[in-house]
């Protein structure tokens, strides 16, 4: 490990999660700075596999993964284990599921 390797939260200007319909939560990592976006994109630290590993879920639950160039953004979507707001829900809007992304190290 390289000492002082920057983390995703140091490079991205927006890291958020939110419901995408009732069966999914979608995650947006957006960069104000194009160079930071390209650095993360090219480092391949965010991939369907790495995100599945981070959240400890099977790869199949990552239903979408898009590098969205017009917005300098990387976006992926997780299938919920049950629809939003069902009994037992802990995040009705899916809006606090992004925090683990902060610590992703970017070479």
């Amino acid at each position: 490990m390289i000492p002082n390797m920057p983390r995703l939260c140091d490079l991205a200007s927006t890291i958020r999660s939110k419901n995408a319909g009732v069966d999914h939560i979608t995650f947006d990592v957006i960069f104000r700075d194009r160079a930071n976006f390209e650095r993360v994109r090219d480092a391949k630290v965010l991939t369907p596999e790495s995100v599945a590993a981070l959240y400890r879920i099977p790869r199949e639950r990552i239903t979408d993964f898009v590098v969205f160039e017009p917005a300098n953004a990387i976006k992926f979507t997780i299938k919920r284990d049950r629809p939003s707001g069902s009994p037992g829900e802990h995040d009705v809007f899916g809006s606090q599921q992004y925090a683990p992304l902060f610590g992703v190290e970017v070479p």
Partner: protein
Amino acid sequence: MTEVSILCPTGHLGFTPLEKASFLAGCELKPDFIIADSGSCDIGPYPLGADGQASPVAWQRHDLEIMLLAARRLGVPMIVGSASDTGTDRGVDQFAALIREIAAEHGLAPFRMATIKSEQTREAMLARLQSGVPISGLDGRADADPAVLARTDRIVAVMGAEPIAAALREGAEVVIAGRASDCALFAAPLLNAGMSPATAYYAGKLMECASFCCEPFMGKESILGRIREDDIRVTAMHPGQRCTPASLASHAMYERRNPYREYVASGYVDMSNCRYEQVDERTTRASGATFVPAARPMVKLEGAGKVGERRLAVVGIRDPYTIENIDKAIAWARARLAERFGPPEQAGWQVFYHLYGRNGVMGDLEPSPPARAHELGIVVETVCQDGKRGEEICALAARNLFYARLAEVKGTAGTAALMADEVLVGKPGYEWTLNHVTPVKDPAELFRTSFHTVDGSARKAA
């Protein structure tokens, strides 16, 4: 070339009150239409299933009043969709009644209002299935069968622009629509002006959440769109906000799985080749959308059904030994519950222990290993058809933590702190039963439009 301007003051009318100053600034620019959506699935299945609402009536009235007075003063149509959070018939009737009340209070001259209802009966949907019309699952869900419909208490169909555009063509000056695709509210007048579905729905997609497409982040501030064919200019109306290529493009991907596609009844907008450019300090221009028509129009159905009565209790734990062994304590508590009330699945009850301080926010998605928290907050949630029995289950689920049997516990006078020895009555638990689509011959066929003359001056005189 035709240009249509639209002012949008809020992304969810009534959810929190809209900000008046930027809206009035937008009105100074004399928009051709004032449009806002009032619904969302994000609020969970309860409001639809129980036909309730998530927003206080006072805030809905606040927003409708500001919009209606401006629209009538400017003499331009106003469109509101997904009335009262869910877009059920109750929501449409409630908003229509508020419009009449506001008109009477202000003595507004007569105007024509269209209401468009989108609620569907379970029986009608069952009849569709029986006549061989599928109700196909979205997002990996199975197709609906009679059992799914039987679990569903309330259903709305999601309209595209067609019924709204028709109401405007027939002279509606206020349109109160039931459940609608957010972007369809904006697309309706643009289609009427002769623009392509690509431009019309794309403009709607960009504008539907008002100031969320601008920066810095602010809610409930107005934006103005000036739309020509393949040329959509969005301007922030709040003096402290700008609409930038980055803010507009990042909004295009908000709350959606795929940032390149926006589905409506008649097809989808393909945004893969869209371009964004700054045209002045507060305005960004978007272009390049295309539209892919569906082989057959497909209308989305949303449905929710009741699962059971909910009860809640709040418990705290401070003993480090109990915190370390909380899984054992909960396993013991669950076992005792099953002994008394029967196995949860067969006996029709459920218990959830929400462990705040450990994984209360993320549940199974939480990757952090349990930390040495100095205290844990536990919300105990139970679900059961019978509320009385549910209350008993919840009380025991909480008290079992108090009496948890752990081998080496030192605090033998109680292994948990009860915030209050009290069981709270939660709203009934519902679930989203339908997230489906059904094919139609005509995209407007599931929706019911009626026209009303609203005469505020007559009421005031009387």
